[in-house]
């Protein structure tokens, strides 16, 4: 158990509404990552953070923003959700030679 929690675990929302997903870690790791997982695509990196207030884009960042005001929390925001953002979202932290993943959030945008 790498001490990562994600909330909510499931969410259904409507197109055009804002959505914020939260990742919380108890390990005090510097690096945190947000991924989305879709059939046929594996996991794709959305954004990552390398410290408080330090973030950068991944390969599928359009339509997403992130914030990290505390070491332990990394927030992913969909400013205006679209159906193409229906997915399972995973947060991860960097260990010594790997990444440890949270349990995921299943988001459905209707």
């Amino acid at each position, binding site marked *: 158990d790498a001490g990562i929690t994600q909330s909510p675990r499931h969410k259904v929302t409507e197109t055009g509404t804002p959505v914020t997903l939260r990742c919380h870690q108890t390990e005090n790791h510097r*690096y945190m*990552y947000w991924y989305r997982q879709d059939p046929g695509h594996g996991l794709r990196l959305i954004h990552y953070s390398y410290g408080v207030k330090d973030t950068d884009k991944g390969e599928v960042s359009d339509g997403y923003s992130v914030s990290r005001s505390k070491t332990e929390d990394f927030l992913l925001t969909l400013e205006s959700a679209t159906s193409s953002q229906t997915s399972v979202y*995973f947060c991860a932290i960097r260990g010594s030679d790997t*990444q440890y*993943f949270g*349990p995921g959030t299943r988001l459905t945008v209707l």
Partner: protein
Amino acid sequence: TQLLEQSPQFLSIQEGENLTVYCNSSSVFSSLQWYRQEPGEGPVLLVTVVTGGEVKKLKRLTFQFGDARKDSSLHITAAQPGDTGLYLCAGGLGGATNKLIFGTGTLLAVQP
């Protein structure tokens, strides 16, 4: 764009059979990791290989990193129903961020 192709995408076998999953790329990676994921959970690391040609064994699982560090394989001997799950390979880009490029996954079902 760096891609990792996994094959096969789906595999359904009987308990006791052997199987191999392949992970191929045209890109060189600093490391190659294999994860296993069960429904409703996040991926869990099985192994990390970092040296070209490296072979690691984990009980009935054997992992190999290609000599050129572009490909990898996972071999399972005498598969058991408990091996059922989604297997993901991931190439490490190294450096401070250590970003990972994930393969598309292999869904394995082992029938008793």
